[in-house]
């Protein structure tokens, strides 16, 4: 890998997460990109919109040998801070129509309304969609 080529360039990367966890692999494999991507020192934001907010709901409970037989990866969101990934945003209406509040979430986030979310999107250089 020639990471060096990228040295010096800092771009705004948005991870747009819109899918529920476990039903599909996108939530998990999105998180794997975020973790690898953290090494590149870019300006990273994570947005949780629509069913994406379910990814960071508290109290996920499943193991390879019980429940649905898949590993619970939700605690990984808690270590994002250690990777300097600290800008986590959730969309207000997505939370409300699901009856969720900040207390239901496993990590601290900033809640954004439509206009704020649109403004966040407008300033990105790269959007990775999952």
């Amino acid at each position: 890998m020639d990471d060096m080529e990228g040295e010096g360039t800092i771009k705004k990367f948005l991870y747009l997460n819109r899918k529920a966890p476990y039903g599909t692999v996108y939530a998990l494999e999105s998180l794997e990109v975020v973790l690898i991507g953290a090494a590149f020192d870019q300006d990273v934001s994570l947005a949780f919109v629509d069913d994406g907010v379910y990814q960071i709901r508290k109290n996920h409970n499943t193991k390879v040998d019980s429940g649905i037989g898949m590993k619970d990866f939700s605690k990984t969101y808690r270590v994002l801070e250690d990777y300097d990934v600290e800008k986590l945003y959730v969309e207000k209406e997505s939370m409300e129509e699901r009856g969720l509040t900040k207390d239901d979430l496993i990590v601290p986030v900033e809640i954004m309304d439509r206009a704020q979310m649109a403004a966040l999107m407008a300033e990105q250089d790269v959007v990775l969609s999952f």
Partner: protein
Amino acid sequence: MKFAIQVNEGPYQHQASDSAYQFTKAVLEKGHEIFRVFFYHDGVNNASRLTIPPQDDRHIVNRWTDLAKQYNLDLVVCVAAAQRRGMLDDNEAKRAGKDASNMAEGFRISGLGQLIEAGIQADRLVVFGD
């Protein structure tokens, strides 16, 4: 009671194969019979012997192979769907002049007639998909 199972999605990307496995296991543990498990669409990708999931994750293909061994299950992979997607047993590979095969132990390739037959012979057909 005799059950037939159809699996429409590949491993890991969608929960379909996981749900089908947990359901099939529960059917067998309750003393019912599984007439056949039929893998269609991307479901054929559940039959690959080349998968290497992470150590701490479930091994979807091996789980099917082990269950088939334990209960003498008939795991059938649709030939037309499999050819499109590059899932071959030794015979198919030889016939098509391909230099490798990738089908795991416990699965066999056959035609769509096996799905219809399963619908006729079994008391219930349960479809797992996206």
